């Protein structure tokens, strides 16, 4: 059962990702990105990381992609003025490079040792909360500073007159 | 009534509880709920007139659907003089005159059509008529219909009322 679900959601994620990078219009890309994000969230659920799956959907699909969609609508580039994409050779070379990378990682992944067992309950709300607020408290706090900086930066950049 | 100057109260500063809006919203909800309940319990507050069943009494000078008047013997009073058709600003009246069988009357309308889709209900035809043959005192609106043809009223329809 797990294998079937893994293959299903993995396939959806990969197909969605391919669509994201191949679609001409950014809106289509954004929608396929949501698909991929959902599939990845489902994979998280398969590994018992329920909390992360929920956060993945809330943060990525609920906020980041909405932001993308918002910007796409805001600047609303007409289809005729979308940039002309690179030549086929460049694209083929890019795909080849990525293929080499994926093959290398596949070889490495087979060598990489991890205990093969059922998913540990590390992604639930309780364990994540405990880890975040004890061992990784400093990192967590620094994240808030990062977010604050991002908020200020975004406002400073996008606002016409401050 | 003389024309007077009405003093309009300037909006005053809101007090703190008012500026929170919460109490005010609850008050507003009370008002709407009051209307709702009173309208459910007794329907006096409802001002709606349920139109086809209940009709508003129209004032006597209201210009409604036309009607053609008849003489005592039942023939139309119209003498096909074309005054109304000439006066009509919307050109919605079509008259075809014919020789009247009654020797006292010269002509009578063979056809008298009013295109209700073009009529602007101005009442000029009524003003123009020399023998009070057309009136607009039915107090009726033009009823809706589903084809254009049905809304060209012929002499029979106009004589009915």
């Amino acid at each position: 059962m797990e294998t079937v679900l893994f293959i299903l959601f993995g396939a959806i994620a990969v197909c969605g990702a391919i669509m994201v990078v191949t679609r001409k219009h950014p809106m289509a890309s954004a929608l396929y990105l949501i698909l991929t994000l959902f599939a990845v969230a489902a994979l998280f659920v398969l590994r018992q990381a329920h909390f992360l799956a929920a956060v993945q959907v809330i943060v990525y699909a609920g906020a980041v992609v909405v932001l993308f969609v918002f910007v796409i609508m805001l600047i609303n580039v007409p289809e005729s003025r979308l940039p002309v994409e690179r030549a086929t050779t460049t694209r083929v070379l890019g795909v080849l490079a990525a293929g080499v990378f994926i093959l290398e990682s596949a070889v490495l992944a087979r060598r990489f040792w991890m205990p093969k067992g059922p998913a540990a309950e590390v992604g639930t709300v309780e364990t994540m909360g405990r880890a975040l607020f004890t061992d990784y408290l400093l990192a967590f706090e620094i994240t808030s500073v990062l977010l604050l900086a991002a908020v200020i930066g975004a406002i400073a950049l996008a606002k016409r007159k401050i | 009534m003389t024309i007077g100057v009405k003093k309009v109260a300037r909006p005053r500063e809101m007090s703190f509880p008012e500026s929170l809006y919460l109490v005010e919203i609850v008050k507003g909800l009370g008002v709407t709920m009051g209307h709702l309940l009173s309208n459910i319990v007794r329907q006096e507050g409802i001002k709606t007139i349920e139109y086809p069943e209940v009709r508003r009494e129209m004032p006597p000078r209201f210009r409604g659907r036309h009607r053609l008047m008849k003489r005592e013997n039942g023939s139309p009073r119209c003498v096909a003089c074309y005054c109304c058709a000439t006066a009509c600003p919307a050109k919605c009246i079509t008259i075809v005159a014919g020789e009247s069988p009654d020797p006292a009357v010269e002509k009578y309308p063979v056809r008298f059509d009013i295109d209700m889709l073009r009529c602007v209900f101005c009442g000029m035809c009524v003003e123009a008529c020399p023998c009070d043959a057309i009136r607009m005192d039915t107090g009726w609106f033009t009823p809706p219909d589903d084809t254009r043809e049905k809304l060209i009223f012929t002499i029979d329809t106009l004589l009915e009322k």
Partner: protein
Amino acid sequence: MTGPLFDITVAVARIAVFFAFCFGLVVVMTWVERKGAAYIQDRRGPNRADIFGIRAWGLFHPLADALKFLFKEDFIPDNAHRLFYQMAPMFSLAPAILAIAVIPFGPDVTVMGRKVALQIADLNVGILYLFAVSGMTVYGVVLAGWASGSKYPLLGGLRSSAQMLSYEVSMGLSLIGIFMVFESVRMSQIVAGQGGLLFGVLPKWGVFVQPLGFILFLVAQYAEANRTPFDLPEGESELVAGYHTEYGSFKFSMFMMAEYLHMVVGAAVVATLFFGGWQVPYLGDAGFLLPGGSAVAVPPAFVLLLRIGAFVSKVVFFAWLYVWIRWTIPRFRYDQVMRLGWKVMLPLSLLNIFATGLILLLLKK
């Protein structure tokens, strides 16, 4: 019945029952909205549709509307982006349906010797799941606005995405107080936690332990559901009909259904998180246990009935509140919405978290 068969039957039954309840309420809501609006405004409201001459106060109007929407011509404007235009209503309806899954509509019951929770799925991330799916609702509106290829829908979509992003933040933050008080994000545990009493008199409902959180959450819910006073994505006075201007026939009716389903689900969420869900004050498993110390025994079947009835009536009340508010409060201006969202709701929800944390800390000592 054997194990898996039993499980599947229970699952299907739960989904069917709750789904039927929600959609039934949606149908009734469309009627209540129109009739309620009419009575509030001293009008008579829909009363014409009849079956064999029986008018039943216009109760057949939802049916007539549904038939009309089904048989209308299904067109796509020339300028529209065909695929996205057709997908938008589905994007709009799906999250509302998904959100139903985690709402408990009754206590655990024993069927054929097995414990069955009256909840479609008791996820351990309950509320987070709710956030996740409610975050998806914005796509329906945005996509509809963008794909219609017309300016008013586009403006509506823009407004909607900005509004929903802004209010999602304070909606999430306003619930953190609830997590902190009930120490769980699992919906069933939050409801169970609201069974107790506060100072021996008040039921320990979310609204009593988190009054500010309740108000903030309610306001944010209205903004998320695009209901008045936050319905400016479809503000008809300036945007024709907003994001669904170019929609007709069944696609439009899907938007309608989505809106009403959001209201029903929103009402269920408010009832669950802040008004004790299926909990009836002072009602234990064996019967009423009044604060004075007197007890009234109630048979278990009746207790179950009372509890489900309590949940249903709470949901109906909050669904009605949506309608009630709509015909009471005028629409905000866009800048007012943004100011309220960022300058009032956000600081207040942060303050709420801080105050809750402080009080919990003092109580623990």
